[in-house]
């Protein structure tokens, strides 16, 4: 399939790459894992949306559905040592980087067993053990963090690579240009992965973005690529190459991934005709769905049967449902936790800030 959808942009160098359409990962296990990971993300989001609709979810949350091939294609090219930074639309990255349903749903529901003990919620979900440095509620807010993680790798002589996920809208934050400059100067092992889903909240990004995104990265001497973000193998093939190169000091890189979000900006954004048409949504869902298309390809290649696909979907959906049921019954953190974890090494922040309790190193 469309590994050739990845192309390097910029000046005369632009053109199709990897035109031989050879599969990115050479073995079936990898395909299966990628497929399952995408299905997991979709199943997670379906449940999360359901929780919102049934008024069981505290606050709002941003669905990743439609963009699965981006998170999975990239994260499958990473190890647990490699880091990512995520966004407000971060469930997909979190699942793709290896997180478990239970702890994720617990976090979304503010329960103690959540990844962040319920203190972070959907917009700050982090999974340190798998190298996910956390979602971020400030658009572009993690660009510094990701670039700093890459600096840290370099300073420590570690070979981990950091992927910084952000949306097309986030390219309007000045921070990005500041850190790209430093990443380029110091050849940091960071990959800026821009998930271009066409929208910045309720506005088409092309109405509020001038020029070209790849050119913006290239202006700093950063190699830029553009790839079809609905084709998991294309994404993965590109990611593997770039991660490998970044690991060997050839970074940083920029990748623009064309994709689409199926839901509104957040779960509450239901009536959205005023900014995008139902036809447009249908077009993407029906013709470019990353899961359906990859499933079809797996079938065509004889790797999975139609029944297998259904079975995988059912199995994962059941898992998600079970995790939701578990999370709904899990306990909230105790009241006494409210001023814990403000400072590392300090049990309770309130007496500490008044000088009545000493903390580590203080």
């Amino acid at each position, binding site marked *: 399939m469309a590994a050739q959808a990845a192309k390097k942009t910029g000046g005369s160098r632009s053109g199709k790459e990897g035109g031989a359409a050879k599969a990115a990962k050479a073995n079936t296990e990898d395909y299966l894992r990628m497929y399952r990971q995408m299905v997991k993300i979709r199943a997670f989001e379906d449940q999360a949306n359901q929780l919102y609709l049934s008024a069981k979810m*505290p*606050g*709002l949350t941003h669905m990743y559905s439609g963009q699965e091939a981006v998170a999975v294609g990239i994260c499958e090219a990473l190890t647990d040592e490699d880091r990512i930074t995520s966004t407000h639309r971060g469930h997909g990255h979190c699942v793709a980087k290896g997180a478990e349903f239970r702890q994720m749903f617990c976090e979304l529901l*503010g*329960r103690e067993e959540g990844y*962040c*003990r*319920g*203190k*972070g*919620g*959907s*917009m*700050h979900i982090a999974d340190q053990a798998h190298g996910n440095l956390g979602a*971020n*509620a*400030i*658009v*572009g*807010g993690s660009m510094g963090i990701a670039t700093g993680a890459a600096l840290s790798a370099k300073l420590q002589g570690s070979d981990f690579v950091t992927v910084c996920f952000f949306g097309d*809208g*986030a390219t*309007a*934050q*000045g921070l990005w240009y500041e850190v790209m400059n430093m990443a380029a100067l110091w050849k940091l092992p960071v990959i800026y992965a821009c998930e271009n889903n066409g929208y*910045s*909240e*309720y*506005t088409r990004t092309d*109405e*509020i*973005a001038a020029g070209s995104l790849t050119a913006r990265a290239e202006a700093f001497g950063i190699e830029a690529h553009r790839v079809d973000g609905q084709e998991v193998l294309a994404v993965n093939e590109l990611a593997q190459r770039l991660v490998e190169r970044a690991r060997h000091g050839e970074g940083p890189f920029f990748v623009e991934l064309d994709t689409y979000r199926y839901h509104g900006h957040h779960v509450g954004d239901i009536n959205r005709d*005023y*900014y995008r048409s139902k036809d447009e949504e249908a077009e993407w869902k029906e013709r470019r769905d990353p899961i359906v298309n990859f499933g079809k390809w797996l079938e065509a290649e004889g790797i999975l049967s139609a029944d297998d696909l259904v079975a995988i979907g059912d199995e994962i959906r059941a898992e998600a449902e079970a995790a939701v049921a578990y999370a709904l019954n899990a306990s*909230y*953190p105790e*009241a006494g*936790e*409210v*001023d814990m974890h*403000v400072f590392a090494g300090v049990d309770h*922040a*309130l007496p500490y*800030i008044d000088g*009545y309790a000493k903390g580590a190193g203080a």
Partner: protein
Amino acid sequence: MTREITLSKAVNEAIAEEMRRDPSVFLIGEDVAEAGTPFKVLSGLVDEFGPERVIDTPISEPGFVGMAVGAAMTGTRPIVDLMFGDFLYLVMDQLCNQAAKQHYMSGGKLSVPMVLRTNLGATRRSAAQHSQSLHALVAHIPGLKVAMPSSAYEAKGLMKTAIRDDNPVVIFEDKLMYQDKAPVPEEEYLIPFGAANVLREGRDITLVATSSMVQVAAKAAEALSAEGISAEVIDPRTLVPFDEATVVESVRKTSRAIVIDEGHRNFGVTGEIASRISEKAFYHLDYPVQRLGAMDVPVPFSPALEDLTVPTPEAVAKAARRAVRGEVADAA
């Protein structure tokens, strides 16, 4: 004629009226036009005033706040929409180094008639980066005026005053209150800055509360009155300027005070107001001035925790009871 309208509608009306009155007024911010902001506060304005005066921006807070400063210095009067008060951190340089100081640094020759409207308030389950109440930061910076409407009535009157002011004004609306209705006159009115509102008169204790906390204080006062405690409730309406006289006057009468504000307590707004009271009503105080602010922790997501972090009517009433009964209070 007075009708009940929401705080959201009140802000919308204030801006629409001022845009009709003065063609140099314009709106700028993220998703302010068709979307009318995520809170729908500005809905419809683009239809009346067009996309030239209701300008959707990229997600570039420092950029568009900086541009508002420059626009204000050269003949127009921008109203900037900052979607969440938490994003203030991003625009502090433009607001505090550029806007706030222009008039002074130029010896009075340049001025920056702009309004930055943003919001505050927790308990929307929006976690640490979308729930802060950061008005203390800007109140500290000379050259900025800071308004804190506590109802639809204040929201309209203060907004109109802000738009006509020749200085940078920051207005904090309470996100939780956008749908709350209050009586608002149909006739035009303005609320002057620096004029506190005594919502309720009382003899035993003064509750000074800002923005979101005014209703909390009012509820506490209601509960206290049932117990025979008469609480005076004062809404300063603006932090800069601050109507010290009205507050001090009240405390000299009641001899007790509690200051309630939704910003973090430590190094925040309550310290300033409480220390003004403690200084200026010193010889009249029967009890130490009490302070209630948001708990000094990042706002937690979990509902089980978040609700513990903001002052409630119960907490205010409890503190008031202790004060009125004179329970010894200064044990460390």
